[in-house]
């Protein structure tokens, strides 16, 4: 599940990040480089406004744990981000907390992105 989710997420993100809207809910929280936004609309707006056009995520590690009785999933991803024509990749770390959406699927409850390159 975690693997499917991250593949889907990064594919959408790299193609057109506006398409990520269905993955969030109004109680979702995105923390991108320490700026927190809550709610689908705000999150999509924030993602769309990020200062790059072309972007490519390369997932290097992916780990996931079920989170207790909420039937959620906690995902920790580390990888490299290639932005626009920049050749050098940047290390990033991203934590997702997924919760069941009640319809057999999951939505992103928490999404915490941080660049951690040196």
């Amino acid at each position: 599940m975690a693997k499917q989710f991250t593949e889907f997420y990064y594919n959408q993100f790299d193609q057109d990040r506006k398409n990520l809207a269905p993955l969030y809910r109004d109680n979702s929280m995105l923390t991108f480089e320490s700026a927190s936004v809550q709610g689908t609309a705000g999150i999509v707006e924030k993602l769309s406004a990020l200062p790059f056009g072309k972007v490519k995520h390369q997932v290097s590690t992916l780990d996931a744990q079920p989170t207790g009785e909420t039937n959620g999933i906690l995902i920790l991803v580390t990888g490299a981000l290639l932005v626009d024509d920049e050749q050098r990749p940047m290390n990033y770390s991203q934590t997702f907390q997924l919760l069941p959406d009640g319809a057999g699927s999951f939505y992103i409850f928490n999404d915490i992105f941080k660049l951690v390159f040196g």
Partner: protein
Amino acid sequence: MLSRPPTAPRGARNSSPATRGGDRGGIQKRSRGGAPARVDRDGDLVMDAAAAGNKRRSGKGRLDSPAPSRGSGRGRANGPSPRGGNLGTIKAQRAIIRGLGTEQANVLESRITPGYSTLQITGLSSSKAASNPDGGLESLLSFLERKATERQDPNSNREVKIKKSHMKGDSVFVTASPGDIAQIQKLNGFSFAGAVLEIQARDPATPGLRSDKSGDKKKDGVSPSAEETKERLKAVLATRYNGELKLLDLSALAHDTGLKEMGVFDGSTTTSKIFPALMVVCGGLFKTRQEKQEAIVSVTLADNDLADVADVSSLAETFPDLKHLDLSRNRLAQMSNLDAWGSRLKHLSTLILTGNPIETQLATLKTDILKKYPYLEILNGVQVRTPEEVAAALDFAKSPIPIAGPDFRDVGQVGENFIRQFVVLYDTDRTALLAQFYDSESAYSLSVNVVAPRSHKISAPIAPWAAYLKHSRNMVKITHLPAQMNRLHRGIQAIQSLWATLPATRHPDIQTQGEKYLIECHALPGLADPTGQSVRGVDGLIITMHGEFEEQNNSTEKSLRSFSRTFVLGPGAPGGQPIRVVSDMMALRCWAPLALPKPAANSQPAPTNNNNGSEQQRQEAMAMQLVEKTGMTPQYSALCLTETGWDLEKAFMAFTANKDKLPADAFLANAAR
């Protein structure tokens, strides 16, 4: 801005008062008029030395020799620049220069694999053996081996052996040791089964160089062999290389006497045919990329009638690290004419497009060009970026996403207290840590990112990952469910037994070295209530922490690792600890300093002044070198160097680009113009 010396209005090149001989522009040094091009260049060196007269010092490349005149310009303030090292000639490169300086290009030769090992044999198809089942190949090969062996020195007992062979069309290609090849080649013109064999050397390394131009391959001795071609190209390259400037002059190739003699242009003036071959030969001279990078810093392709760099696209492959490039006086009209190089040649610091149709649009194209060449400092002799700006631009490019400080939204300092205790206890007493914050439901897993990119500036070795890898739960790699489950550790015991095997660590003191951490904390509603009372769950915290630790392995070497760790904290069960770790996930990667929020500008270290003496000497020496090379007055040379940041190579490129515009008084009176 680079304020150029007062310029005369730009006109036809020949309109300057003293017309220079020859019409080769670009980087070629000023030459005596009328003499053939090749002699020109060779003569040039002599002439320059003569023109400089008694100013000429022995030991050209030395930086420490006193010079009669000092540059009036102020040097860059940051002390001896590493660029100065370009002038101090490196040993290996000296060898190249020496070799290239001679017509024989001895050193070059020694760098090329000696001899060639492939022969092309034609004639089999018209022989009687052609009707054999194998087209006569087998009998031809034994014929060649036998005849070649017979014709050897009678004292030699060696048998000539053909190692490999294949037929292609009318030709048979055979491979053998260089000695045997030489023997076999002597059979050229022999009769085999009623047909005359023609045997020619073929070099697989230069497929672009067919000596046969228009089906005349059957005529003996008319077309040079591949080896001869290579030797000739090497000779051409040798005359076109300036070791001191690390410059390869590929200007006006269509007018090159040596190339013309070879007949490579075949009536046309296109460089597209000969260029790839030149690049192959040139590339073959260097064993490593670094060797090449050190030997050739600048290339001029001036006066080649290029409408698109597609004709010379192999330049980018052969010289990916090129710093200075002169494309003066070609027919490049738009940005797309440079597309054939793609995003290679990224390291260009100087680009000269003078005398191309594109020149008129440079004002509007500047942004695009700067984007394409992130290190570009000088465009058409005009400074478009300072070295500091290049550095800043690269920093920016490195981080298009602004790095922000941590967003730490704690609840009642629970998160902060947890982290403070965690980093200390994880280093000193993992058992106590587990007892205090973990319970039977706590989950822990780790993953190792062995491919994390890091800056080339970091040279510290990466300690082996063995201790971690066997536990890594990286689902990108670990795809079997049982393995995934095995590597998820639940409960104090399971986690403890794993942690006991992991290397001891020391985290930086979070009080005094807080800058080595980036920790974020957010409230997290909806956790399962350990008391089971609240249906909608209880509030917890999600903490993400990025930092580093020092690994205390058995050896005395300390190794640093970077990590990202995510915790989910929740309230403890009644009667137990007040808070518990629900989840603990750790991702490790090779150490690199943490990305920190952008510091305020002007963090540039203050210029040091303790090197004034040597810096001044260095500049004086450099100015004199430029005087020698250009015939400019010391004043103009110093000016030119000042404007190019005291980089001799750049200064010379700037001179080349602008020399037509320089007033007469920019040159020494006795210098032949």
